[in-house]
């Protein structure tokens, strides 16, 4: 694998493509939001203020009718609420700040997206390389198992497993709060462990297929045959020759998978299976019953998901155009 060449073609494609630049900017923005959420947030995203519930975003007004006692009589009054800069994206029914929740939601999405992809890639690539390298019965067995996994729609399997196993949330301490740099912010970020493992479990198969394909083709290359005849061990061959050759398509696949997993996580949170309340999907579900009165509660976190996933997809397109791997399931390819 020639890293210099990879780097050069990445740079050339980046210079050519305005969409690649847009993608990188979007992703950087989301990453900065997620990392520095405690500094950027204006209010603790979990703090409730019921007297300020359902306030519209700044620049919008919201008119509701309310029944009040005026001079001992029931009267219907029209109440107009104006959005303020204090809550730039409005508040939800608990009076929580949507803007601060948006920032912290980015943490959950990226944590699950990156960690889930990493686990899926690690498991999938290991299985794929072993299957492709050894071939024969090992290959048959592993790939039939992969077929069974693929027969379950990912979301359905994920719902079943999480619904049955429970969310198992784990608190990760926030380094900025622990260091005393900010106060009044949540001390921990919740990692929904079951969600992370399950999204990895339902997505490892794609990595296994790509890695297996690469391993199959590399195995037959003369230099690999030569080093084998010189007595190189299987492990050494897999690590030194098969793995590096599979890295480009795996990198492209991993990028796309981060987007897939973020969408999957948001769907699971939307259904209430994730075990954390600081998640874009969860916030969307919160606004669902208030669509007629408070449209912003569902709208804002959804826009955040769309922008993030567009950014990742643009970066994915950039990598694919620059590195041009042939990935099954993404651009077509053989039927295995």
């Amino acid at each position, binding site marked *: 694998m020639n890293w210099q060449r990879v780097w050069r073609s990445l740079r050339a494609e980046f210079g050519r493509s305005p969409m690649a630049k847009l993608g990188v900017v979007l992703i950087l923005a989301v990453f900065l939001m997620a990392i520095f959420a405690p500094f950027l947030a204006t209010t603790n995203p979990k703090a409730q203020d019921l007297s300020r519930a359902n306030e519209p975003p700044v620049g919008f007004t919201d008119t509701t009718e309310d029944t009040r006692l005026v001079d001992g009589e029931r009267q219907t009054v029209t109440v107009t609420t104006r959005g303020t800069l204090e809550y730039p994206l409005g508040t939800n029914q608990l009076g929580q700040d949507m803007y601060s929740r948006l920032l912290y939601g980015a943490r959950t999405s990226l944590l699950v997206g990156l960690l889930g992809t990493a686990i899926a890639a690690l498991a999938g690539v290991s299985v794929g390389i072993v299957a492709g390298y050894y071939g024969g019965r090992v290959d048959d067995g592993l790939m*039939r*198992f992969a*077929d*069974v996994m*693929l*027969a*379950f*729609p*990912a*979301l*359905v399997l994920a*719902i*079943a*497993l999480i*619904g*049955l*196993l*429970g969310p198992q949330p784990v608190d990760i301490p926030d380094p900025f709060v622990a260091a005393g740099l900010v106060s009044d912010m949540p001390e921990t970020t919740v990692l929904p462990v079951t969600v992370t493992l399950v999204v990895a479990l339902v997505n490892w198969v794609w990595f296994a297929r790509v890695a297996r394909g690469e391993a199959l083709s590399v195995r037959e290359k003369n230099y690999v045959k030569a080093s084998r005849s010189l007595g190189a061990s299987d492990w050494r061959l897999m690590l030194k020759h098969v793995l590096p050759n599979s890295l480009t398509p795996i990198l492209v696949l991993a990028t796309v998978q981060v*987007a897939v997993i973020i*969408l999957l996580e*948001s*769907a699971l949170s*939307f*259904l209430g299976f994730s075990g954390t309340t600081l998640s874009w*999907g969860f916030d*969307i579900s919160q*606004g*669902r019953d208030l*669509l*007629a009165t408070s*449209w912003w509660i*569902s*709208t804002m976190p*959804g826009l955040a*998901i*769309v922008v993030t*996933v*567009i950014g990742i*997809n*643009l970066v994915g397109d950039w990598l694919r155009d620059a590195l041009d791997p042939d990935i*099954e*399931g*993404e*651009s*077509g*390819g053989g*039927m295995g």
Partner: protein
Amino acid sequence: MRLTRFLLRRTAQGILVVWGVITLVFLLRFITPGSTIDFVAPLDASPELRQRLAEDLGLNKPIYVQYADYIVNLLQLDMGNSLLKGRPASDVIFARLPATLELAIAATIVAILFSIPLGVISATRRHQPVDYGATGFSLIGISTPNFWLGIMLILIVGVNLGWLPTSRRIIGFGPALELLVFEGRTIGIQVWFEHILLPSITLGTYFTALITRLTRNGMLEELGQSYVEVTRAKGLPETLVKYKHVLRNTMIPIITVLGLQMGTLIGGAVITESVFNWPGLGTLIIDAINSRDWPLIQGSLIVIGVGFVVINIVVDALYMYFNPQVTFE
């Protein structure tokens, strides 16, 4: 002949996969914390009653006996009784199946209807406004979570404009069609259509976007091939070149990807149903999981798995039709 042999082989493979699905689904109950009996028995049940219940449900037998029983019953289409509804799980599941099938088919129709023309136009008018529009739409389409899209459609079309109903199904396609054919009344079809429109757009958008993208990229690649020049040089009309020869070759990768994405369609149906209170398998499975109704959970998962395997066989057969060189060896 070739197709028959292929279908036979593929069916044999499919049966193996279904067996794997059944086994996994069966094992799911044993990796779940909490015993099944706790969910079935009343809180104040005496040990004797619990014992009797366990015997009734066959829960105290060794796991391999339960497994064998389960397979034997399944072969007779017996999935056990739903713990909540007291009716055979298969009845409950098959009553819900038409709603999900209708939704999936409607979404596929939406996707094919819009995406292929859009992709073709986009590719043949490269770097024109219509191409940028189509590319932008497909990028946004594949990046939008469908449950959020559904909620936005409810907000705009249902709540703000008040044009369409935003939940439930009211009438199935079958009864609606009967009403039209036997009584000549169109109201059934109309109500059916009004209710399925938003859910099918919600479920279909991702696929519309994906296929638009694939059609555009595939067409662009094919248009650069030398055979296109040859057919043009032969004097064939440009439309025929584009739509018959180029599009046909473009279909091959599209069908492959569609086959691989069928899981996304089924998963998407689950969540779309939940957004629109659509009474299909998706809402059923979520209810069943929340109430630990094992026969229902297992039955729905198996039906979904079997459906997925069948769809994939159909997709492979289509693939073979469009690409006669494929041998599947």
